[in-house]
């Protein structure tokens, strides 16, 4: 018994149906990619950041205009009257937020000193990925409540520094961080267990999703003339700088 490889001319044309599999596969793959774009950019689609599953059709389309106005109630680092403000919706247990926290500190080092940029921090705990994040958001709020704006940022900086991310922070660390930044731990613990900031945190989450946030960190760069640019993810410093420069020019 012998086997011979046939020459191309000897090969019979395949049945037509076989040829359809490749175009069909490409079309379906294309549809999937298009779906990725659609769902990825879909404003206010329920995501891991959304606690309660909601139907897309019932949700208004998320737009940056729905961003809650920056007020004295916000946690602002730098000049509150800065021409450019970066509103960051963040999850303390998200590793990318931890990374982006350092990027934002770099931004403030370059643009914050002369009052060009202010950093506004809002909570966006993704409960389904990081169940501990909401309690940590409350801890940061308690720090702000007990010690003012400086303690809020000192606590946030320390928390992002010590957390291993991905839900890895031992809750016992929270009062230790409070002590580290100079807060009264008894008052801090009382605040944390009171649940006093639950509503505020949920409002932040709702506002994040209303503006189109579907992952963390989710940032909105607000420039002169109130022009807003969305920035999703822990983007490189160079990209943030590009956006800040655009916003400073009022473009």
């Amino acid at each position, binding site marked *: 018994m012998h086997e011979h490889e046939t020459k191309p001319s000897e090969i019979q044309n395949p049945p037509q149906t076989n040829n359809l599999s490749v175009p069909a596969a490409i079309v379906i793959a294309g549809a999937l990619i298009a779906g990725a774009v659609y769902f990825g950019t879909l404003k206010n689609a329920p995501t891991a950041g959304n606690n309660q599953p909601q139907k897309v059709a019932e949700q208004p389309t998320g737009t940056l205009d729905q961003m809650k106005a920056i007020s004295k109630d916000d946690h602002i680092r730098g000049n509150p009257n800065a021409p450019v403000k970066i509103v960051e919706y963040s999850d303390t247990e998200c590793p990318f937020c931890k990374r*982006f926290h350092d990027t934002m500190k770099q931004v403030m080092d370059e643009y914050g000193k002369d009052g060009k940029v202010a950093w506004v921090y809002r909570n966006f705990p993704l409960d389904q990925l990081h169940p501990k994040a909401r309690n940590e958001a409350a801890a940061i709020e308690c720090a702000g409540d007990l010690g003012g704006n400086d303690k809020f940022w000192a606590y946030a900086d320390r928390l992002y520094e010590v957390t291993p991310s991905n839900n890895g922070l031992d809750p016992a660390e929270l009062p230790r961080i409070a002590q580290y930044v100079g807060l009264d731990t008894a008052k801090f613990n009382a605040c944390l267990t009171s649940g006093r900031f639950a509503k505020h945190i949920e409002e932040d989450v709702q506002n994040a999703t209303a503006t189109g946030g579907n992952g963390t960190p989710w940032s909105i760069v607000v420039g002169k003339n109130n022009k807003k640019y969305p920035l999703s993810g822990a983007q490189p410093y160079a990209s943030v700088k590009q956006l800040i420069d655009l916003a400073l020019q009022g*473009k």
Partner: protein
Amino acid sequence: MLFQALQKVFRKPAYVAFALTTSIVVFTFVVWLPNLSLIVEVMDHSGIPFSQRLGLPISLLGSIATNFTLLSASYTIAIALLFGVNLAVTIYFLRRKISEVKRSGIATGFMGITSGVLGMGCAACGSLLLTSSLSLVGVSGILAFLPLSGGEFGILGVILLSISIYLTAKQIQNPVVCKIN
């Protein structure tokens, strides 16, 4: 066998160019995906100098180092490369009209692409398509139970695309065998 088949395909510079272009397009698309609307807005802004407009999308390519874990960056790059190779090999295969053979390679490639798309990249916390899709059916919580939070689909994509290339290469190398009794 695989190496010989790939050599046969990529001996032609057009296939190398095609595979590379496809890989670059896929990679760029995945990295830009979380900020596509921003890129469109800036590129479309006539009041911004062209060089400045171009600067943002170029700088956003750097997010492969900041917005991806080592694992997700690795399989994203691997999927982009394998996608390009897979498409080039499949087209070579079809152009030689030897698609008489089993469709297993192509079918596996399709599954690889599907799986890769589901798990590829990471729009910060939560993979884009996967999180959104699962949320639509109310089971996004399942991600919390996956050790890699959806990264499994990316790894599966790499494996399936590799199998697809292997199977297609096998067909190229041994297109049709006629047994003579």
